[in-house]
């Protein structure tokens, strides 16, 4: 267990849901990631839902997912003793990631300047919801607030109805992964020159980055995109992206440009099964589909596009996701089933690649099945190094091992409420 890729490097993880994925990625790459938690446990342990809907600090699905492979120690940073222990940890660490309110670490004497004095090699990533300079820098930012500030929320849903979240909140995951990338960028010169640095991650900007080509639209095309349910489109185009089928939904597009061969293959399939209206299969039947125009359509062609989309949905309604998927693969159609967790768990491709892995959770006395390697590396395979730790599971190991405390010192710290 444990990848060779970052073996020997250590990260102190003090991030909440704005950055837990950072330490998870590092743990997957073989770093020793130590979660430094308050004595009552990190707030992420209280994020519902819980395994089998039974609350408990080891049972949160979020914590099970994003703390996997980390070690855990408890430390009370509000106490002077706790901060002294933290300083000792910092001397033995290569990375720190945290998402405290701005100024908190400075206020307890553990800001970047101090960390840098303790260990000039340290790479310190601070994850902030709105950066560290603007008027909102001290704002509270639950995930949905950042989703809104970064623009993705505006584009999800129907106009006139509330803009939407993703039902598995995403903004903090983007920020955590960005902190991992930035830490790796800083790692490379640090290993050559021996000097670390401070990183500020802007979570709002991370959400803006997910908007693909839309962010520049207002500046270059003079307007901004409205949300439109299952329809998509750069401004001026309009295409349905989700179609009903017999047992669920399928995503695809009737579009030109790079989609044209796929659209033709889809129409050919409908024709083979007698489901394509005559006008649709005639040469030039769908006037809005051209090699040059991916999504653009003249207003007068939109009506026939609607009719084509209706015909396609009628066709798909007679087929299951599985049948459609087999035809997508066989006919090289640019489409995909709208997969549920059940579909993904049963997927033959992921099975063939042995993607999902089981890790043994000591506290729960059971195995947890979870996503495995995010990439396959030929010399240094990566992937979950173990299950999520219990609160303070590694206190003795870390404090008496890494910091070489005597058991009575640890007992004293415990009695003083520092650990």
């Amino acid at each position, binding site marked *: 267990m444990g990848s060779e890729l970052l073996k020997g490097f250590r990260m102190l993880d003090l991030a909440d849901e704005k950055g837990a994925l950072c330490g998870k990625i590092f743990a997957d790459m073989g770093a020793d990631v130590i979660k430094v938690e308050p004595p009552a446990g990190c707030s992420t342990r209280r994020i519902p839902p819980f395994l089998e809907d039974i609350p408990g600090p080891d049972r949160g699905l979020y914590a099970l997912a994003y703390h996997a492979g980390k070690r855990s120690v408890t430390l009370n940073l509000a106490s002077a003793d706790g901060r002294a222990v933290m300083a000792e940890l910092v001397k033995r660490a290569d990375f720190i990631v945290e998402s405290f309110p701005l100024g908190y670490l400075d206020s307890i004497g553990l800001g970047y300047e101090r960390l840098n004095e303790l260990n000039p090699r340290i790479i310190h990533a601070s994850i902030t919801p709105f950066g560290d300079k603007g008027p909102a820098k001290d704002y509270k930012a639950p995930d949905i607030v950042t989703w809104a500030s970064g623009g993705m929320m505006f584009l999800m849903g129907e106009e006139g109805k509330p*803009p939407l979240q993703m039902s598995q909140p995403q903004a903090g995951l983007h920020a955590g992964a960005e902190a*991992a990338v930035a830490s790796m960028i800083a790692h*490379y*010169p640090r290993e050559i020159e021996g000097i670390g640095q401070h990183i500020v991650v802007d979570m709002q900007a991370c959400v803006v980055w997910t908007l693909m080509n839309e962010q520049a639209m207002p500046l270059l095309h003079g307007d901004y995109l409205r949300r439109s*349910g299952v329809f998509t489109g750069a401004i001026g185009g309009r295409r349905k992206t989700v179609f009903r089928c017999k047992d669920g939904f399928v*995503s695809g597009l009737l579009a030109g440009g*790079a989609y044209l061969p796929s659209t033709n293959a889809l129409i050919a399939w409908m024709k083979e099964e007698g489901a394509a209206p005559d006008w649709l299969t005639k040469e030039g039947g769908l006037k809005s589909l051209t090699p040059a125009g991916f999504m653009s359509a003249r207003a007068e062609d939109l009506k026939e596009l609607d009719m084509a989309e209706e015909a396609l949905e009628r066709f798909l309604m007679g087929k299951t996701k599985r049948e459609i998927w087999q035809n997508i693969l066989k006919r090289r159609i640019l489409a995909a089933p709208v997969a549920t967790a059940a579909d993904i768990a049963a997927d033959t491709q992921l099975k063939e690649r042995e993607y999902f892995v089981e890790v043994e959770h000591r506290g729960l006395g059971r195995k947890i099945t979870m996503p495995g390697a*995010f*990439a396959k590396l030929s010399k*240094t395979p990566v992937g979950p190094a173990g299950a999520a730790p219990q609160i303070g599971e590694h206190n003795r190991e870390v404090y008496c091992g890494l910091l070489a405390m005597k058991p009575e010192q640890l007992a004293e710290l415990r009695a003083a409420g520092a650990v």
Partner: protein
Amino acid sequence: MRRYAFEGIHVLDFTWYGVGPVTTKYLADNGAEVIRIESAARPDGLRLAPPWKDGKPGINNSQFFASYNSSKLGITLDMSKPRAREIFIRMLPWADVVSESFTPKTLRNWGLDYERLSTIKPRLIMLSTCMQGQTGPHRDYPGFGNLMAALSGFYYIAGYSESELCPPYGAYTDFIAPRFSACALMAALDYKRRTGKGQYIDMAQYEAALHNLAPAMIDYFATGRVLGPQANRSERYAPHGAYRCADEDGHERWLAIAVASDDEWAAMLKTLGHPAPEARFATMIDRLENRGAVDEFVGALVRNRNAEELTAALQAAGVGAYPVQNCMDLHRDENLEAFGFWHWLEHRHMGPSPYEGLQHRMSRTPGELRRAAPVLGQDNDKVLGEIFGMTAAEIEQLKQDKVIF
């Protein structure tokens, strides 16, 4: 001391569309010399997609392409021609990294798989990223990030209900996968520096993206429960959602609010000028059990108010809130401005063009958008002449033969 983190690192980059170019952009913006190898015979599809300078399509006019290719050099080689492949093999010893994002058979057909390349260039690091990975029955599945977002479960967890799915905009997984491939690539570079060993990285965008749904997958494997669209429902915040405020300039305006505790709820009522405590919604349990009524209640309180003013007032009272911003709002957002997120770069064909900057800032070796994206074949003479020592006559002949194309 180095100015950029990856100074001196050389990348030959065959990637196209989103995930690959965004991955190598991290290296390029941090000082690596990244040579994108393109061809007019098979252009990157993003070069053909909007937004365009002045709204006019053109292969050198797309900001979509430009956004993901800042700081890179661009050359054109038509790799379907054997001589182009010979030139690539001549270039190979220069490279620390080769990257590509075609469907798996493409490089094999060119005879440029990792096995062969690493024989010619020992210690090479190579990144291949495609939809579903280099092995397995679906390895040759072609697609884009919007389809991957459907296939990897994101479409199904977004919407008002199962009959009203409302997927995330665009090629959503294209903005998840690159951070994983960038981490792997950078760690592999450091591993090679330390151990002398190169390696091959096979990143399936599917397998990277699923990490953003890990809790739902753990839940399914443990209990069989399938996460579906929850509208704006949360199990830990109430209220939690977007609430319509007063229209502005004739357009609807929404405010996102998430209330984490009873204290925050009391602070919110006070801020919104609601006189009496609302007994039926006093506790989090009350509010979670009556979400619909809470949403209606909050909706009525904010309906005719100004979203910006409410944001400032609610945040001052310790309540998480922010306007739901459209793409125009983002360009006026003072926080993005203060972070230095937006940049105008001089593009050879498009002139001054708007780029998104980095989503992080570093104190010692900050990355930056070192230059605008290249026009097609912009650096042919410089790269093939100055770096690889070809004569002007040789380059001219290759252009005539459409090998450089």
